[in-house]
Structure formats: C-alpha cells, structure tokens
C-alpha cells in the first residue's frame, strides 16, 4: 500500500541555509493494509520527519514515497485531497492540535465542510456517532465541549475518530500515546490494535520500545536518520543483532528486571555519556538480511555502533 523508497531529507541549516543536515538517509520500507509498523528512534533520529514526509507536510529531498502505485510528491489539488481521504496523521500533543478558542467538534465540522457536503444533518450525525463509538467515546461526553473540558485521552481519541470518518487506509500516529497517563494510554493503544484488525495500516512512530513492541507487527529502528534494524517485531526484539538496538533494549527500564540483568542477558555495552565532543555516529551501512524477514545494517564489531 505505502512504499517508501531510498528516501532522504536534507534540512538547510546555518545562518543563510548554507549547509545541509541530512535528517533522513536512504530509508526504505513498506506498510501493508492491516499492518502496524513501529518506527522507533531516539530524539533526532528523523522518525517524525519520515511521518511528515508521508503526510506531505515536508518535501522529499531524494527518493520517493509511493501510495497505491502513485508517487505522492506530484499530487496537487483534487488528487491531493483524495490522498488525504486515505492517509491521515495524529500527532503527539492533543492539546495543541485543537484551537482552544473553538469547541473541539470544530475538527469534525471542518471535515464535513471539506469532504461530506452532500450528507444531510441526520446522516452526518449518525456517521459521526459511529466513528466516536469506534474509539469508545460517548458522543454526549465530548460533543459541544471546549478542548480544556476534555482529557488528553479523549482529545486524542477524537482526533483518531476524525481520521476514521474519512475511511482512511493509513494512519500516521506520531507519538500519540506519549502525552497520556499510564492508566489510559493502554486503551488508546488497544484501540489501534482493533483498527488494525479492520484493515487499517498504521505507521506507529515512538521513542518508547515497550509501546512499539506491544502493538507492532514490524519494527524499524532508526538512528541518526538511517535504519539500523528492520524486521518482524518478534525477531527484532527477540534477537536484536545491531549493537545499537541491543544497547537501546538494555537501557529500557523494565519492571521486573534491573538494568544489569538485562545487560547481561543481551550482552550489550552500557550506554556511554555524551560529553559534547566530536564522535557523533556515522550513519549505518547497508542493510543485510540476517534471517528471514530481519534486516540489519552493517556494523563493525568494535563499538562503531555504540551509542553516543
């Protein structure tokens, strides 16, 4: 369905945009219908940049993003509008996704104005209620309210409901759980799982390895804009091959294992401290297939892959 091919993004940096920063470097992957692909990386790894390029919020510098056989970079006008009927994004901070001056339902009204002008009031209402129901929200609880009257979890679910109104086929979920409290975030995560079983493809962008491993079918680990490991989630987490993936996994705080126990299990080096000096990691090498559906970037044995 979605195919990202050797995609690069360079940002202009410096006083007059004189130099380039390569934020995403030759990234390729696919998302199939009903598949959740987790894009995991630390800050600055380019994970959000990839999401924004898929949503056409940023231009691709090199490479291509293909949706249903068509390159999205050339879409304009009506064709672009049709693309957005298939692909939508939900972002990290639900509070800043709404205009605080207007009621929260304005996001639905705008959608109706753009895409569903032909629907009668009653038809629209039942469609809206159906999609709110799909994200387990009670319409009476959330309609006609201002954003500050709703909880973060409710706002985030309304944004997902908004995307569902369009019968989208791909959802770009950029850190949508990170702002939510522990007791409610799992419900939003389960919701994504339910949507996936209905055939929705999801690109789940996160820095949290626990969340990624819980929900995704395939996992991609990014580092400094390049893919270091890619494959079926069980394989990547069950048999991490790249030293960077291992040290990431060893650093995740676990509830029943101490850091030392994990480290011994994974045979990983403890994370180093960044002293601000040179030594920012060179981006990864070519991906090689280590086992069935499990690719890993080439690395030299001696800590070239050690974290910064």
């Amino acid at each position, binding site marked *: 369905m979605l195919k990202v091919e050797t995609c690069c993004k360079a940002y202009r940096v410096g006083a007059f945009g004189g130099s380039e920063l390569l934020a995403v470097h030759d990234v390729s992957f696919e998302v199939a219908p009903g598949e959740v692909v987790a894009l995991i990386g*630390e*800050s600055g790894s380019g994970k959000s940049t990839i999401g924004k390029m898929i949503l056409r919020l940023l231009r691709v510098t090199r490479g291509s993003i293909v949706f249903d056989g068509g390159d999205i970079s050339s879409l304009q006008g009506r064709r672009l509008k049709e693309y957005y009927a298939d692909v939508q994004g939900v972002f990290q901070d639900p509070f800043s996704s709404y205009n605080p001056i207007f009621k929260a339902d304005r996001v639905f009204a705008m959608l109706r104005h753009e895409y569903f002008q032909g629907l009668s009031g009653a038809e629209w209402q039942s469609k809206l209620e159906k999609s709110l129901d799909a994200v387990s929200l009670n319409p009476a609880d959330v309609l006609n309210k201002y954003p500050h009257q709703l*909880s973060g979890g409710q706002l985030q679910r309304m944004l997902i409901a908004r995307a569902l109104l369009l019968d989208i086929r791909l959802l770009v979920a950029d850190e949508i759980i990170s702002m939510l*409290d*522990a*007791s*409610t*975030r*799992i*419900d939003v*995560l*389960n919701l994504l*799982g339910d949507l996936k079983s209905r055939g929705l493809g999801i690109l789940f962008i996160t*820095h949290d*390895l*626990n*969340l990624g*491993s*819980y*929900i995704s079918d395939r996992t991609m680990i990014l580092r400094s804009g390049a893919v270091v490991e890619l494959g079926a*989630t*069980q394989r990547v*987490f*069950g048999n991490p091959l790249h030293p960077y993936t291992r*040290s*990431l*996994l060893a*650093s*995740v*705080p*676990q*509830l*029943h294992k*101490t*850091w030392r126990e994990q480290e011994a299990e994974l045979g990983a080096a*403890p*994370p*180093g*401290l*960044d*002293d*601000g*000096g040179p030594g920012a990691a060179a981006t990864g090498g070519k991906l090689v297939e280590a086992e069935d559906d499990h690719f890993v970037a080439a690395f030299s044995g001696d800590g070239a892959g050690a*974290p910064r």
Partner: protein
Amino acid sequence: MSVRVDGLKVYYQTLHGDVKAVDGATFEIADGEIMGLAGESGCGKSTLGKSMIRMDARMRYVEGHVDLDGAELPIWDDSKMNAFRFREVSIIPQYALSALNPTRRIGTMAAELLASRDVPVDTVLPELKRRLRLVGLSEDVLERFPIELSGGMKQRVVMVLSSILDPSLLIADEVTSALDVSTQRAVSELLVEFRDRGFVKSMIVITHDLSVLYQIADTVLVMYAGKLAEKAPAETVVNAPSHPYTQLLLSSLPEVGVRYSEKRLTGIPGRPPSLLDPPTGCRFRARCPLAFAKCADEPPFAEVGAGHSAACWKVAA
C-alpha cells in the same frame, strides 16, 4: 530519621475554591534512602515535592509539618526558608532543561547562584569541576552557553549545580522524563551514585514512570488524587503491591516482549476525581473493582507489613 512529613496539606487557590492537591501526607524518609514518588498527572506528586522547598504564589500551606534532621522546616514562610534552600534542601526542577539561564555561561550562572547564598565561588570551584568530571562532562562546559549542550548534558549540569552544597534532601522532579532511553539510564544511575558518594543524604525522585523507580529507588510512595495510596520497598511495590490502584496501574504497563496479539492489557476505566471538590471516603472508590460500602469512609494510611503502608480497607482488613 532524616525527613519526616506529618499531615501535610497544600492546596491551590483558584477562583472556584481550593484544589486539594496534597491532602494529608504522612511519611518518613530514612538517611540514605531514595524514595520514589509516583502517580499519574494531577495526583499531587510534584506539589508535594515543591512544597518542601518553595511554595509558588498559587500554593497555600494549610497544615502539617516537615522535619528535616530533627528541625522543622518553616515551609509556610518564604523568606525563612531561604536559610534552608540549596544548603539543606535542594531541587532539580521538572523543566531542568530550561532551568539554565540562556544568556549566561554555565560558570557565570553557577557563580551568581552561589553568590546569592553567600558562598564564595572559589571555595566550591574545585569540587564543582571534580563533580562535572564525575558525571562525564569536561570542565569546559563552564565556559559554554546552555544552547551549546545537549539535553542530557544540561540535565547533568543542573544535577551537579543543585547538589553542590551537599544538601540533606534532594528533590528530583521528573528529571529523566524528557530524555532518551540511554541518557535516561545514565542520568538515573548518576542519581544513585550521588547518594552513594554522600553528596546528598536522602532523595525524593518524582516520576510517573514506575519502571525507572524499580531501577533506582529504595522505596516507592504511590499517590492518587492528592492522597497517599501505598508506600513500600520498591521490590514490594512492583512484585507484591497491596493497593488496588497500584495493582491496576502496574498491570496496564506494557513491557518489551508483551504483545497485543498475545496478551491484551487493560487500562483503568474512568478518570481521577476533580480535586476541587473531591469525593468523601476513598478517592479511588469510583474506579476500584473491589469497592464496597465501607469505602465511603476514608481508609487510614496504615501499616500492612514491614515498611509497607497502604490506604485501603480491603488490605487493612
């Protein structure tokens, strides 16, 4: 007993009335103890931490006592507290990453900070440099501006500055939340090292992340809606929690290896009550699967085992 908090109540003043953010907290922290303070957003954990060093303008001290090393902290008196701040009680604030003055070099800022407490910078400088090296920073950072440092580096600078006068109590408010996992681990382990080296006597580590506390804390205090829910050694809280809230919270946390398709976790239905007009009795009652008639009375925060207290009728019974 290094820190002793007794019946502390701190409310927020709003136009609609008092928000009872900390509503009767009683607990102790031993010398050398790292106490984790956990809970969801709005449960009062940051308020409790902040009230022990500085109340902001909206916070109102209602009642209760905080004793540090046998002497009472005058937490209701902003100017009297100055004698204790930085020397006896110090804080690594929630937004430590923005706590550094962007217009000052780190060294200049440190000197100004020390001067404000009448500490000549020369007496502290060698120790400051030594501790910066200990946390993996070269002493050159003193010549740099905050913008030149990464998030993890800024966090370590603030840690060193906050604890440079060897306070008896250090309050670390969400210090690892904004960091990447590998930096988070390194910073967390430094907190433990600061305690081990005696830079600080005891520590309160405030976070919403129980798995970080399991790694570094000796004891964990769980708060819910302004009240204490449970306090126990970290091992007990994680492996044998007694309060239903702690149990449900832990069961909703995904771990690496737990997968949606194999084991579906569930959250806690409902939301915490408003603290503007909290319900009487147990505040977790409306969301608790074990609630029964007696929960309409407030359960005491009572000892249920060695070093283990919980506020729940089902546990006490």
